[in-house]
C-alpha cells in the first residue's frame, strides 16, 4: 500500500513541479559506436550465488548470465544458436545429441575451455550431493561423454524434445577451478571465472556488483567497458535514481509507464520506453478435485462471467494481453486458431442453469439448497490481489458468492497448495519457450508438492504431453501442442487472465538499443549498446 500512495504522491509532485534540473542535452543525434563507458542499472535483490544451478533466484541468473555461457542460446527470434557450441547434430532416432564445441576458447583466467568442462558441469548438476533443484532434466541423459576435446555427446534412453532447451540453460563451469572444490560452498560462487562478455570486477555486499569486460570472451568484446548493478530494493527509489540520471535503466511498472511518463515531457527527452511481452501469465485456477469445479459448465460459466479486458485495463492499465495458450503470444507455439471466450453474462447464466443452479432469494445461485460460494486464494502480490477483487465483483454481479484470502507465499504453498485444501487460486506460470508442459498438466504430476496441484486429468492430454516430449520435428510437435492448447482451452481447468508486458526505461544516452524489440527482448543485443563519450558520467577514476 505504501508504494501505491507514494506513487500517487510522486505523480502529484511530478505533475506540478517544473523540474529545475532540466538538462538541455539533445540525446537524439546519431553518434557512431564508441567502446568504453559504464552502464549503471539497478536490481531489487542481491544475487545469492553466481553458480546459477545452485542459486535459482533471478538476480543471480541475471548477473551469472553475463559471466557464463551455455552450449546453446536463443537467437533474437527465440530459435537456437550456438553459444559455446559451434553446431550440433541430433541422431535419427533422436536419442543422441552431438555438440561441436568452439575451438581455441579460453576461460577468463587464460586456461583453455574443453569438452571436459562440459562433462564436469553435467556431472555436477546430476551429482546427488549438489544442492540444485534443477537436476532432473539432466538425469535423463543416460550417458555423456567427450569424443575428443571439442565434441560433447549426450545420449538419452528415450527421445527428449526439451533437451536442447536444457542445454541452453546450463551454464558451463570451469573444471580446473572447481574439481577440488565443494560446489555447494565454494568461494568460486562469489568470484566466478567464465567465458562470456563480462567478468566480475568487484562485489560490494548489499550495495553493488561491478562487472568488467572479459578479454577472452567467446563472442568478442562488448562495447560497454563496465556494468554496475546497484541493489535498490524499492522501486520508487529506483525510479528517482533513474530520473535524477544516476542509473541508466530499470524495469518500470504500468503506472510509471502510462501515467508518469506521458505527463512529463522533459522525461521523454532523455528516457526511452520499451514494451515487450513479459515472461509469465496470470490465471484463475480451479481445484478440479472439489465440487462443483469438476463440472465443465460451472467452469465455463465463471469464465464467461469474468471480464478479462477489464482486468487488463484495471490491473495493468492496458499493458498486457489476453492469451489462449501457455505460450508467448506471437511466437511459434501459440495456437492462433482458438476462439476466445469473452465476457457474456447471459451465456454464463445459461450454463449455470443448465447445471441445475437457480437464483435464490439473496440473488445467489444455489442447487439442492447449497449456494454457489467459494474462496479465491492468492499470495501477497498486488496485481494478483487486485485481479481477485475484480473477479469477485463480477461473480457477485452474476450471483456467485466469492470471498478472497491473501496469504504469505510459504504458507500459501505449504498449507493450501500442497495439501489440496483450496477451492480456487489466482496464480501465475511462466510463458515457457519450450512447449513442454508435462509437469503442469500430466495426470501423474498431481502429488503433494508437484505442479499439477489443480488435479487436471485427461488421458488424451497425457498422451499428447508424452508424445510431445519425444517428438523433435517442429512441425509435428506444433500439431501436438496445438491440440493440447485447444483441449485445455475448451475444458477451462484454468482461466487464462492476462500476460503482462515487460516495461523497460532506458536513458537515451545508451545507444544501440533496437527500436523494434525482437521476441528475445530488449536486452538481446546489449553487447552492441554503447554510451558516446560526451554523454558519459565523470568516471575516469573507474
Amino acid at each position, binding site marked *: 500500500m505504501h508504494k501505491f500512495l507514494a506513487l500517487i504522491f510522486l505523480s502529484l509532485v511530478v505533475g506540478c513541479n517544473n523540474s529545475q534540473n532540466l538538462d538541455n542535452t539533445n540525446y537524439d543525434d546519431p553518434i557512431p559506436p564508441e567502446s568504453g563507458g559504464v552502464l549503471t542499472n539497478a536490481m531489487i535483490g542481491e544475487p*545469492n550465488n553466481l553458480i546459477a544451478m545452485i542459486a535459482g533466484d533471478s538476480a543471480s541468473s541475471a548477473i551469472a548470465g553475463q559471466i557464463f555461457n551455455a552450449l546453446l542460446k536463443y537467437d533474437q527470434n527465440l530459435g537456437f544458436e550456438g553459444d559455446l557450441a559451434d553446431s550440433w547434430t541430433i541422431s535419427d532416432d533422436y536419442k543422441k545429441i552431438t555438440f561441436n564445441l568452439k575451438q581455441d576458447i579460453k576461460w577468463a583466467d587464460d586456461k583453455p575451455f574443453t569438452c571436459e568442462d562440459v562433462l564436469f558441469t553435467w556431472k555436477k548438476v546430476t551429482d546427488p550431493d549438489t544442492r540444485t533443484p534443477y537436476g532432473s532434466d539432466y538425469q535423463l541423459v543416460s550417458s555423456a561423454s567427450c569424443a575428443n576435446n571439442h565434441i560433447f555427446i549426450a545420449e538419452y534412453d528415450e527421445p527428449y524434445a526439451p533437451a536442447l532447451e536444457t542445454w541452453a540453460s546450463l551454464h558451463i563451469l570451469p573444471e580446473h577451478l572447481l574439481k577440488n572444490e565443494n560446489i555447494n560452498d565454494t568461494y568460486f560462487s562469489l568470484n566466478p571465472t567464465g567465458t562470456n562478455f563480462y567478468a566480475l570486477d568487484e562485489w560490494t555486499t548489499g550495495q553493488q556488483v561491478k562487472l568488467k569486460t572479459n578479454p577472452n570472451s567467446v563472442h568478442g568484446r562488448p562495447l560497454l567497458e563496465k556494468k554496475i548493478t546497484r541493489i535498490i530494493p524499492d522501486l520508487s527509489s529506483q525510479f*528517482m535514481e533513474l530520473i535524477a540520471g544516476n542509473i541508466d535503466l530499470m524495469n518500470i511498472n504500468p503506472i510509471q509507464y502510462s501515467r508518469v511518463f506521458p505527463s512529463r515531457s522533459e522525461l521523454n527527452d532523455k528516457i526511452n520506453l520499451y514494451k515487450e511481452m513479459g515472461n509469465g501469465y496470470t490465471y484463475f485456477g480451479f481445484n478440479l478435485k472439489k465440487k462443483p469445479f469438476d463440472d465443465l459448465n460451472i467452469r465455463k460459466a465463471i469464465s464467461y462471467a469474468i471480464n478479462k479486458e477489464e482486468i487488463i485495463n484495471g490491473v495493468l492499465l492496458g499493458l498486457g494481453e489476453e492469451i489462449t495458450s501457455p505460450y508467448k503470444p506471437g511466437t511459434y507455439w501459440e495456437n492462433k486458431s482458438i476462439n476466445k471466450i469473452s465476457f457474456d453474462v447471459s451465456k454464463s447464466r445459461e450454463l449455470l442453469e443448465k447445471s441445475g443452479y437457480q437464483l435464490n432469494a439473496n440473488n445467489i445461485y444455489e442447487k439442492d439448497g447449497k449456494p454457489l460460494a467459494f474462496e479465491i486464494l492468492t499470495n501477497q502480490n498486488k496485481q494478483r490481489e487486485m485481479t481477485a477483487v475484480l473477479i469477485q465483483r463480477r461473480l457477485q454481479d452474476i450471483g456467485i458468492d466469492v470471498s478472497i484470502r491473501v496469504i504469505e507465499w510459504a504458507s500459501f504453498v505449504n498449507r493450501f497448495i500442497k495439501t489440496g485444501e483450496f477451492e480456487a487460486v489466482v496464480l501465475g506460470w511462466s510463458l515457457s519457450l519450450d512447449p513442454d508442459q508435462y509437469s503442469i498438466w500430466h495426470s501423474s504430476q498431481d502429488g503433494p508438492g508437484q505442479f499439477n496441484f489443480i488435479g487436471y486429468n485427461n488421458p488424451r492430454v497425457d498422451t499428447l504431453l508424452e508424445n510431445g516430449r519425444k517428438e523433435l520435428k517442429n512441425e509435428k510437435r506444433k500439431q501436438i501442442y496445438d491440440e493440447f492448447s485447444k483441449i485445455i482451452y475448451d475444458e477451462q481447468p484454468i482461466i487464462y487472465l492476462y500476460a503482462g508486458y515487460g516495461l523497460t526505461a532506458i536513458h537515451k544516452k545508451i545507444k544501440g538499443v533496437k527500436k523494434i524489440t525482437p521476441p528475445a527482448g530488449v536486452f538481446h543485443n546489449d553487447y552492441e549498446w554503447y554510451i558516446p563519450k560526451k554523454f558519459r558520467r565523470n568516471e575516469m577514476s573507474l
Partner: protein
Amino acid sequence: MLNYLVKRILWMIPMLIGISLISFFIMHLAPGDITSNESAFNPKASEESRQKLRELYNLDKPIIVQYGLWLKRIVQLDFGSSFASHQRPVLWETKDENGNIKPGLIQKALPITLLINLLTILLIFSISILLGTIAAIKKNKIPDRIITLFVFIGFAIPGFWLALILMYSLGVVNQVLPISGLHSVGYEQMSKLGQIFDLLKHLALPVFISCLSGLAGISLYVRNGMIEILNQDFIKTARAKGLYEKKVIFVHTLKNALLPLITILGLSIPGLIGGSVIAESIFAIPGMGKLFYDAVLMRDFPVVMGILTIGSILTLIGNLIADLAYAWADPRIRRGLVK
C-alpha cells in the same frame, strides 16, 4: 558487587537457552522451509530434488533433533551458513585453504545498522533534551506549544512518505543529497576524509527520518521530568539562596530529570541492532532489518536464529548495563544491590 555481576551473567545462560528454544520452535511453526520459496515454484525444479535439498539441510529431521544440532554448533560459537545466500557464513567471515574470504552476513550488515542507530540515538537524545528543557522552562507558553506540536507532527508523519518527498526534493529536483545507497560511484578513489563526508551525506536522510519519530517520546519525558523537579522544595531552596537561574536549571534540575533516561538508554541497546525494513528498502541500505526480513520470508533458519540469538544476548546485556548504570547514578539503588 562482583558477586552480583557473576550471578547475573550466569543467569543469562539458561535464559538464552530458553529464548533460543522458543524462537526455534516458533520459527518452525510457520509453514514451509527454504525449498518452498517462490523461485522454487518452478516446473523445472522437481519435488524429488526439493526433497533431496531438505535432506541435505537436515530439514527432514524432527524439530527437536534439528534444535539439538543447532545448539551443538552454537556452543562452539558456530552460527552456521545461510541456506538462501548460499553458504555464506551467518555471523563472521570464513577463510578457505586458498585464503579466499567469504564475508559474514551479520558482519557486513551490523556495522551499518549500528552506525545509523547510534547516530540516531545520539541525535534524538541531544535534541530531545534541548527541546524538553526549553518546553519545561516555558511551560504552557508559546515555545512549549510549538515544540509539542512539532514533535508530535514528527511522530505522526509516515516515515516512508516523508522519506520519498525528501529524496525527490533534495535528490532529484535540487541535487544536494544522494537519493539512495551508502557510497557514491568512485568511493574507493576518494581520500579518507572524502569517504567519511560521502558516507555522512548518504546517511543524512535515513538518520533524519529515523530520528523524527523518536523525538516526541523523549522530549516530553524530559519536559515532564523537569517540570516535576522544578516544583520541588530543593529547587525553591536553591533559588532562595540566590543561585543563578542557569545553575538551577542545568545543574540541579536537569541532572535529576535525566536519571530516568538512563533506563531508556539501556533498554534501547538491543534496538541498536534492529534496523527498519522500510527505511532500509527505500534508502537501499543493506542493514539488519532487511537481512532479517528477507531471511524470515525465505525461511532461512540459520540467519533468523543467528540474528535472534545475537539480539537476545544484546538485550540481556543491555538490561544489565541499564541496571548497573542506574546503580552508579543513584546511591539508593546501589546500596540495595550490595545488600
